[in-house]
């Protein structure tokens, strides 16, 4: 059987060529041949996405590529997940959304996918979410973290309102994580808006949340 690292390289090449058929054929063939789906996921697909995420940070790929790559990766992740036993999501609950007035949520879906893969329960509240809704849902579902993705400067002030609302209601233990183009433009805004952490991309969001929640 082909080694995982060799498969990983091949999968990465398919992603980089935006070749969804080749990626699909490769993962389907691996599953048919009895490859362990968990190994496929953790040692083939996710490391490839990690490489792309780094390229994104270094501005080596454009949004058109990221968009298609994310679609290909999500399709293959879902295909592999079907073959895996259903596990309870034990790490805790994350609330996710964009602030009121911000309808830019391209990266948000990928964050949700990766968090679910990391065994978090994710409640995606969608686009343009009122700060009360973020807080009410976090309290109602005993969430550990609220994740807010933002593109626009002035609507991101909704993040400050989330922080204030959490503090005013005595839920300051709920962590606030921010991400999106705005914070990549100016990381200092994280502190200005009272966030606990900033994640520059979807994979880092998982790492940051694990650190904040003491997960492994």
């Amino acid at each position, binding site marked *: 059987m082909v080694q995982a690292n060799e498969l990983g390289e091949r999968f990465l090449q398919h992603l980089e060529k935006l070749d969804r058929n080749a990626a699909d054929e490769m993962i389907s063939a691996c599953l048919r041949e009895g490859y362990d789906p968990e190994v496929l996921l953790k040692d083939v697909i996710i490391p490839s996405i990690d490489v792309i995420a780094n390229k994104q940070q270094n*501005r080596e790929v*454009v*949004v*058109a*590529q990221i*968009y*298609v790559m994310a*679609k290909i990766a999500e399709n293959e992740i879902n295909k592999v997940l079907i073959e895996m036993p259903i596990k309870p999501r034990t790490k805790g609950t994350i609330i996710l959304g964009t602030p009121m*007035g*911000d*309808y*830019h*949520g*391209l990266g948000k879906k990928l964050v949700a996918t990766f968090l679910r893969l990391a065994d978090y329960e994710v409640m995606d509240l969608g686009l343009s979410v009122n700060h009360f809704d973020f807080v009410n849902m976090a309290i109602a579902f005993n969430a550990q973290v609220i994740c807010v993705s933002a593109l*626009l*400067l*002035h*609507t991101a*002030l909704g993040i400050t309102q989330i922080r204030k609302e959490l503090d005013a209601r005595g839920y300051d233990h709920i962590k606030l994580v921010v991400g999106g183009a*705005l914070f990549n*433009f*100016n990381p*200092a*805004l994280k502190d200005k808006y009272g966030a606990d952490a900033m994640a520059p991309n979807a994979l880092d969001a998982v790492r940051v949340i694990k650190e904040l929640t003491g997960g492994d």
Partner: protein
Amino acid sequence: MPTPLERLMTTLSHQEGDRIPIFPVMLQHGAKELGVSLEEYFTNGEMLAEGQTRLIEKYEHDAVIGVPHVVEDLLAFGQKLVYFPNGAPVLGGMAISRYHQIDSLEVKDPTEVPELRETLRAIELLAKRFKGTVPIFGAGIAPFSLPSMFIGTEKWLQLLFDEPDLREQYITRFLELSMDFCVNWMNLQIEAGADAVVIADGMASATILLREQFQAWAMPLIKITISRINGPVVYEGVGSLGQFADLLPELGAVAVILDRHDDMAQCKRALQGKVTVVGNINNIALIDWTPERIEQEVKAVCDAAKHGGGFVLANQGPEIPYDVPDENIRAFVEAGKKWGRHNGAVV
């Protein structure tokens, strides 16, 4: 001393005048000067014109702009705007949610939309006050980017990159409708008195598209659009354009607004004598930078791009945020005057 319009014309003809033109894009700060809300300001042509007048008297920069924000273009598509106390309005929703709805999408003539009429009124008033001395700019959304605003960015990306059959079926209709609106709206602004218009094209920048995609989809559209506009056009990437620098002279634009990631010296070399470069100070960071830091940043851009004309100092697109303090705007303009002087100019 030359007028701001003469200064701009000199640089557009790739000559050195007394100094570079300086254009901090302040769409919202006029409301502060007048002590009114942004909603009131954005929907009142007289206030827009008065706000721009007070700003140029205060900072003594080199241009005025009659448009409150290009997002207002979507009012003609039947969309609503949600106003904020400290920033640009955002769309309250999309005009359509399914691709086939493009066939029945009704777009109003801008003169039938009260807010857009106020924009034309602002331009007329600015023309009355400044025509022939200070350049008056209009602005709108470029046709490749308009669909992302009336059907949503994700649906537009999906159509472009993920649905070849649907793309084949619908893309021409999306782009033609957008181009016709953009051309009509820009020509109305020019008729009202704008000396030039800026078309903002966030979805076509090198941040979004690969070079071959830009060449295949965006470039032909931009070229036709610009050729149909009855005045000079400034092309704004609202994202990086540096990777396409060698292609930009073909667009027909007199100037291009560059992003903070673009290498100004490199772009200037590629465009020297052909297209004026505009930019590229980080507009978001202007909120937190000290005046000293702003001077350093302005000096670096001027050193990279001022030689031989063909350069306007501005922020990267779209505009200077509402919360940027006055002292930082002043630092931006003063640094431009200091470091943008040309050798031999009489000070």
